[in-house]
């Protein structure tokens, strides 16, 4: 059984605590900040889901935003157009994204890295084409407007209350990732990434796991899409088109193949647009520069960099204790 270190537990507890009291510090009525907090949640889920796929299993996806879009649109169509209750609607979009993820999984079993990257990119283009052209269903280029706020038993959720729902869902996804990673399944994922042939010869059903991880990761992205729809109440294809690069930046900058990495990445990169408001026009380029710098100088991201710093310090501490 994997044992979590005491310091790690403390860090997690402090992070969750800060996340929970944040709305009260910033003001529960301050929609600007609350919206940023909620964006951490859905981007965090997205980054974790991408990390599971790319960081752990080594399957490159360049169109992960598409699953977020499908999740969001499915939720919007089910609740507004068909008048479903929000719970079955979320469930419905999870199922749909899971199944479409399996479809990509089918491709990942058959194709090598670059071919798969191409397929996922193409898939996301197709999704945005459908969204733009099928206006009767999706609102087309004008976007999908008027998604209802979260309402339970007649109680309409305030934005900060929605944040707690989103936070709870994020923690749930984090827990699922944690359990998957530190288990037989997670070991299989990593084995597949490092040496697929050896993995197969150790009894791992390589294609089965690739197939499944695509589904799981897509469903997580779908959930993020639902939260997005609930928060913004408006959907349009180009937001999701752009989010693919943003997500990749978050995952890479935070550190792929580690549990904390994507969360750190989300917090850092998610805050950038707010800090760089005057340069909003050049934001994509800034992401680009950041990505390249991180890949060049911090191959394991911020998390990996911090970890090796701490390890080094620990080692020198031990050395200084040993040598008088």
């Amino acid at each position, binding site marked *: 059984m994997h044992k979590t270190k005491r310091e790690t537990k403390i860090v997690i507890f402090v992070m969750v605590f800060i996340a929970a009291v944040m709305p009260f510090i910033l003001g529960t009525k301050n929609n600007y900040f609350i919206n940023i907090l909620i964006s951490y949640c859905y981007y965090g889920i997205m980054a974790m889901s991408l990390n599971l796929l790319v960081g752990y299993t080594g399957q490159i996806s360049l169109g992960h935003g598409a699953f977020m879009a499908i999740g969001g649109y499915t939720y919007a169509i089910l609740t507004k157009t068909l008048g479903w209750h929000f719970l079955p609607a979320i469930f419905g979009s999870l199922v749909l994204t899971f199944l479409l993820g399996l479809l990509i999984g089918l491709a990942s079993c058959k194709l090598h890295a670059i071919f798969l990257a191409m397929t996922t990119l193409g898939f996301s283009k197709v999704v945005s084409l459908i969204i733009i052209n099928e206006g009767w269903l999706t609102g087309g280029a004008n976007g999908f407007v008027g998604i209802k706020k979260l309402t339970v038993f007649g109680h309409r959720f305030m934005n900060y209350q929605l944040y707690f729902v989103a936070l709870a869902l994020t923690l749930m996804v984090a827990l699922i990732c944690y*359990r998957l990673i530190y288990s*037989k399944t997670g070991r299989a994922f990593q084995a597949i990434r*490092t040496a697929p042939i*050896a993995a*197969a010869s150790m009894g791992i059903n390589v294609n089965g796991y690739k197939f499944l991880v695509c589904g*799981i990761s897509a469903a997580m992205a779908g959930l993020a899409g639902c939260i997005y729809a609930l928060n913004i109440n408006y959907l349009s294809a180009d937001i999701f088109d752009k989010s693919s690069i943003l997500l990749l930046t978050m995952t890479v900058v935070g550190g792929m193949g580690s549990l904390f990495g994507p969360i750190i990445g989300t917090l850092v990169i998610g805050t950038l647009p707010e800090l760089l408001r005057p340069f909003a026009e050049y934001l994509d380029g800034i992401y680009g520069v950041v990505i390249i710098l991180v890949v060049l100088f911090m191959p394991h991201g911020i998390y990996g960099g911090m970890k090796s710093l701490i390890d080094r310090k620990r080692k020198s501490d031990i050395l200084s204790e040993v040598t008088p």
Partner: protein
Amino acid sequence: MSVLLQTSKVSMHFGGVRAVDLVDMSINSGAIHGLIGPNGAGKTTLFNIISGLYIPTTGNVIFEGKDITDKKPHEVTKLGIARTFQNILLFDQMSALENVMVGHHSRTDSTILGTIFHTPKMKKQEVLCKDYALSMLDFVGLSDFKNNNAGSLPYGQKRVLEIARALASKPKIIMLDEPCAGMNPSETDYLIEIIYKIRDFGITVLMVEHNMRVAMGVCDIITVLDHGKKIAEDVPDIIQNDQQVIEAYLGKENLE
């Protein structure tokens, strides 16, 4: 002695090249069976066919009386055939212990749902898996390095770790692809010891070996391949003096 693994008229063609050509080979249960031959004789290709990585152009692989020719690698492993690789394929970023735990993959039956919901059954399986992996590390003498990254281990230990990982799948037969390649004499002796221990454990061994001292000293029976064909199969003493084998190794012209 009963036959555990058998290849019957197995051939593998790559384009026009016959990497393996109509090879019949029977491996008896409990034996240490050697597979030797000059470079390019088709030894590793034969390993790949048996372990399910390649599907042979013709012929069958029979394990415990069942035809396993078309089985996928992970199914073959589950049936009880484990292997190591000529050019070490470890999961470098994982610890030695985790590597061996991956080897035990097919012997635990917890599902993904069980993992997500953290069922008691799954927790128990994890503990058992870890214990088994530890015992395998102990078996090959790597207990002290269980938390080291596999990629950071020295070369010799990597080879031994691969064997531990293969053993963790509880095989009936283990296929070692040049276990002693690149090892110094004392490491080689240690490895021979391990191979005997594996045999005494009740596991059949099929090994490709280039080091003739090892092959002749350890193996009960040796099959010789040359250009994809089986040219001899017998006990080491006879193989050593077989004219065809000597020709294959030294080249005909050198003898004349």
